Structure formats: structure tokens, C-alpha cells
């Protein structure tokens, strides 16, 4: 059972020192250049934590105020714990290049003479994207992707802060990164009906980023809730908070009123007009029904309000569970334009 292999220069036998992730090194004694074969060179970056305990708590307290959480939450919440952790994220930058072809519909003319045409589209995509995803099972931390990826790197371990271990594979993540970037790139072309697309993604090296996150746990009527605070920007990344019975009832009442009246208005439009504008009536009805549906979901599940990628509860708008792809270096696009 071998657990350690000492590294010596193969030509002179001197002791070698290699930074994790590097691919070549030169022997300090005989200066022969050596290639390192190993784990495929993943570079690690650890970001400096910018917040202290008080700032993290202040940020969590500010988050408690908004978003239809329990009205007495800022007053009654009792912070029990607040500590920083380092969470690992895979990061991959890639350039997407290719063509997306298809068509869009356009209606021309006025009133009775209108006709719908298909206009062919052919768009070039040439853009850099970056992608990131948490490198372990996020559990109840509820952070899948980061929005901010800038920070000051530290060279050495900040000793006392617990660092979460990587438990997912870099190759799987790279494949996922390429796939999500390809999808985002195709969508970024803005072609509504795609008939053909060929987009190549050229990924760079995988990077491992250790990102500082503050865990703030608090108690509200005997129950334990939490919020996580971004250790660089100070914003709240995810969290759970109690909901409010009054807001839920208000939302239900107003939602159903909007839904009911709106639907009757839509039906009125449908009955009163004969020709083309029936589409408007249907649109009004659909919109009002979705308002009523949203209000009902808040009424039903609003006893717990959530932020970020945590399970359960109610969250306004769409859940964050995006693809983790962000635009990088819009400048590249501009450069191409200028060259033309």
C-alpha cells in the first residue's frame, strides 16, 4: 500500500518542488525542464473574505426586512450563530463560436391586408462565456451558482476558516459547462425559430474557486432558519425565513380579485368584438389567470419564504436554478465589430 511518492529530478536526483496544478517545472539543480503528468492541471484560487461577523449579521438583518417575510422578523429573530466557510466552485471560461440559422415571423400591412411573413435569419455567435457551479452537494446551503466571480485571491490558507471539500468530478463539470455554454450561446443569437445551429465551444482550463460564504443561523419562535451571505460582495445568497399570515391573505384576496375581474373583462372583450382582436381577450384572460395562480401559490406555500436554491417554501419570481453561465468580456465582441 503506497501512499507517498517522493519527487526527484529524473536526471540528477535533486528534490523537486511543484505547485499544485502546474504542468511543467524546472529542476533547481540541473535546470532540466520537466513535464508533470498528473491530474490534468486544475488551478485553485481562494478568495479573501471581506466581511466580518458584524457585517454579515447586518446584511442578514437587512434581508429580513424585505420580501413579505414575517412582519415581526427583524425584531423577533435572534441570531444564534454566524461563521464563515469556504465553498468550492468549478469555474470554466470558454469561447463559443459558430452560426445559428432560422427564421422569425413578421406581420406587415395594416388592418385587413396584413400578412405574416417568415424572414430568414443567419447569425454569427462569437463570444466568451464563463460558467460556474458548486463543486460539492450544496445541501441546505442553497447556493448552486455564483453571480460574482471577482475577488482578491489569497495565496495561503486562511487557517481557521473551515473549507468544504470538493466531491464532484472536474471532467463531469467541464462537460456540463460546455453544454450549458453551448445552449446559452445558441440562445444569445436571438433567433426565435432555429432550423440549424453549429456552435463550437472551446473551454479553457477548469479552475477551482474557494469562495467565502458566511452562514448566519437565527431563531424565530423556536424554529431555526438561516441565511448565507456572500463574503465578498456582502449580499445574501440564499436563505429561509418565516412567512406572514397577513401578507398571504392579502395576496390571495388581491390575486383572486385581479384574476376574477380580469377574466370577466377578457370574456367581455371576447363577446363584444367580432374579428381580429379576440386574441387580446384571450391574452387578458391568460394573464389574469396566471396572476391568480401565482397568488394562490404564495397563499398556499408562503409560510416559509426562501431565497436562492434551497428546497421548499415560496420564492418570488423564477427560482434561481439557472445554468450558471455568465457573459464575460463583452469587449471581445466589440473588438470584432471595430475590426470590421
Amino acid at each position, binding site marked *: 500500500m503506497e501512499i507517498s511518492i517522493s519527487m526527484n529530478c529524473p536526471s540528477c536526483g535533486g528534490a523537486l518542488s511543484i505547485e499544485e496544478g502546474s504542468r511543467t517545472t524546472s529542476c533547481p539543480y540541473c535546470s532540466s525542464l520537466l513535464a508533470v503528468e498528473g491530474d490534468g492541471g486544475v488551478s485553485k484560487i481562494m478568495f479573501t473574505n471581506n466581511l466580518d461577523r458584524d457585517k454579515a449579521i447586518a446584511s442578514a438583518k437587512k434581508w429580513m426586512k424585505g420580501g413579505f417575510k414575517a412582519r415581526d422578523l427583524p425584531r423577533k429573530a435572534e441570531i444564534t450563530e454566524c461563521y464563515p466557510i469556504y465553498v468550492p466552485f468549478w469555474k470554466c471560461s470558454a469561447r463559443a463560436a459558430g452560426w445559428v440559422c432560422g427564421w422569425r415571423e413578421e406581420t406587415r400591412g395594416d388592418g385587413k391586408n396584413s400578412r405574416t411573413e417568415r424572414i430568414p435569419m443567419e447569425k454569427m455567435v462569437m463570444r466568451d462565456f464563463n460558467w460556474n457551479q458548486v463543486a460539492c*452537494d450544496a445541501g441546505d446551503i442553497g447556493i448552486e451558482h455564483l453571480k460574482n466571480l471577482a475577488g482578491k485571491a489569497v495565496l495561503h490558507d486562511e487557517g481557521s476558516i473551515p473549507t468544504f471539500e470538493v466531491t464532484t468530478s472536474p471532467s463531469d463539470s467541464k462537460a456540463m459547462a460546455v453544454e450549458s455554454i453551448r445552449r446559452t450561446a445558441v440562445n444569445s443569437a436571438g433567433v426565435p425559430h432555429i432550423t440549424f445551429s453549429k456552435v463550437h465551444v472551446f473551454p479553457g482550463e477548469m479552475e477551482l474557486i474557494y469562495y467565502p460564504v458566511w452562514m448566519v443561523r437565527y431563531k424565530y419562535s423556536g424554529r431555526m432558519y438561516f441565511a448565507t451571505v456572500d463574503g465578498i460582495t456582502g449580499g445574501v445568497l440564499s436563505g429561509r425565513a418565516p412567512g406572514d399570515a397577513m401578507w398571504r391573505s392579502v395576496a390571495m384576496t388581491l390575486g383572486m380579485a385581479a384574476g376574477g375581474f380580469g377574466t370577466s373583462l377578457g370574456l367581455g372583450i371576447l363577446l363584444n368584438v367580432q374579428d381580429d382582436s379576440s386574441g387580446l381577450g384571450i391574452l387578458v384572460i391568460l394573464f389574469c389567470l396566471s396572476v391568480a395562480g401565482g397568488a394562490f401559490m404564495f397563499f398556499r406555500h408562503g409560510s416559509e419564504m426562501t431565497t436562492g436554491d434551497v428546497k421548499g417554501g415560496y420564492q418570488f419570481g423564477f427560482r434561481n436554478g439557472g445554468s450558471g453561465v455568465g457573459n464575460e468580456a463583452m469587449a471581445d465582441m466589440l473588438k470584432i465589430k471595430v475590426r470590421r
Partner: protein
Amino acid sequence: MAEIKCTKCGAPIAFDSGDKFAKCKYCDTQIFIDKSGAGFFYIMPYFIDQANAQGIFKRWTAGSLMARDLEATARIISFKQQYFPVYLFKRDVDGKEKVQVEPARSTTLPGLHSLKVPAGDIKIFDQNYDAGGIELLKPDIDMAAYLPQLPGTAKEQALVFFPLWTIQYEYKGRKYDAVIDGSSGEVFSTDYPTRKAAPYFIIAAIAFIAFLIEGLIGVLLWPVGFACGGALALVTIPVVFIAAYTIVRRF
């Protein structure tokens, strides 16, 4: 921190679970730690203490899908702190790293079948590590049983003990299980007393129909009906609000 002996001078070198390289303090030798042949023991410390775990359980029982009176009436039978073992295999399959997690113990606990190693600060578990008297569930499935079925070649394999709070509670004469991951605080449960959506749905449907009818009166019998429907709505809104508030509180 675990230790290995320097292959050159024999001095002890401390290293941690994520390290691939270690440097000897005495003779400056850089050592690569080859984990492909060895089986490591890792352990994940608790971030959630007992009071926290109880608070998380209480919060979970108050969820919108759980029975309304679950928070108030669930009687906890047992609240145990246990380390659960899983195998973590890192394999090299055609130059790509694959991670596979398999249970090291047969269990009926919820949430441990779709296994992933939860987020946590993994430490090397050896005789120096003090588990603080917490029960370590012994693996009863041998690592060798999995090895022949795994793809590719070994890169690393480890037994990971991860921290759990296992809770058994009783509600209306029936026993239920729930598990809290002691590192991130996630609650796992496959079977729990559920809340009926019917009261919520009925009041919402009644409110919707009432407003729809009032709206239709307004639209169809314009302009007399509009005033009429509007007046009715002014009465309906507070009634619906009070009904909704009662339902939120009671059901």
C-alpha cells in the same frame, strides 16, 4: 491532520484530506500522495449542534406541506447523533475523472439512498481524530464488493463518515423518521404527515368565482351593473380576506 513518513529522511509530514502534494519540513522533499492504492478514512465534523438540529426540525415541521398541527403535536421519540459511512470512489475513466458514491451500510433511513457526499469540511479520520464519543455506525458492506463493478482505474477511494441527526417522532399514533445532515442542515424525509390543500383551494376557488361573477355583472350590464358589481366587490374583499386569514391560521 494525518501524518506520513518522508520517503527520504523519515520525518513525519502532516497532510490533510484534499492535499495531493506535501512537503517535508526537514529535507524539503516534495511528496506526491498517491491515493489510488490506499483506502482512506475521512470524517466530516458537525456544524449543527443539538439545539440547532432541534430548531431545524421544528422549522421543518412547520413547513407548508406538513400537517398543520405537526409542529405542536409531534412527539420526539429519539434524537440521535450518528456518523453514517459511505464509500467515495474517484476513478479515472478514459482520462476523465468520475466520482461515485456508494453506501457502506444497509439502512432504512430516508435520504440515504440517493447518495451524495454532502458539503462539509472533510478531515482525515485516524487514531488522532476525536469523534467526541458520537456513535460511528459501522460499515457492513465491504469496499471490495464494489471494486470489480467500477469503471476505469482507481484514483482514490475513501470511506467517509458523515454527520447525521436521526430523529424518530410520533404523530397520531404513527412513527416517522427524519434525518438532518449535520453539516449543511438539510432535512431528509420520505414519509411525513401531509397537510391538506383542499381548504386553501376551496377558499381560493370560491373567491375567484365570486369576483368573476361580480366582474361579469359589471361588464354585461354596463353601466348600471358596473356600479352594482363594484359595490358587491367592496363587500366581498374584506370577507375573502378574513376567510383567507382564518384558513392560514387554522389549516
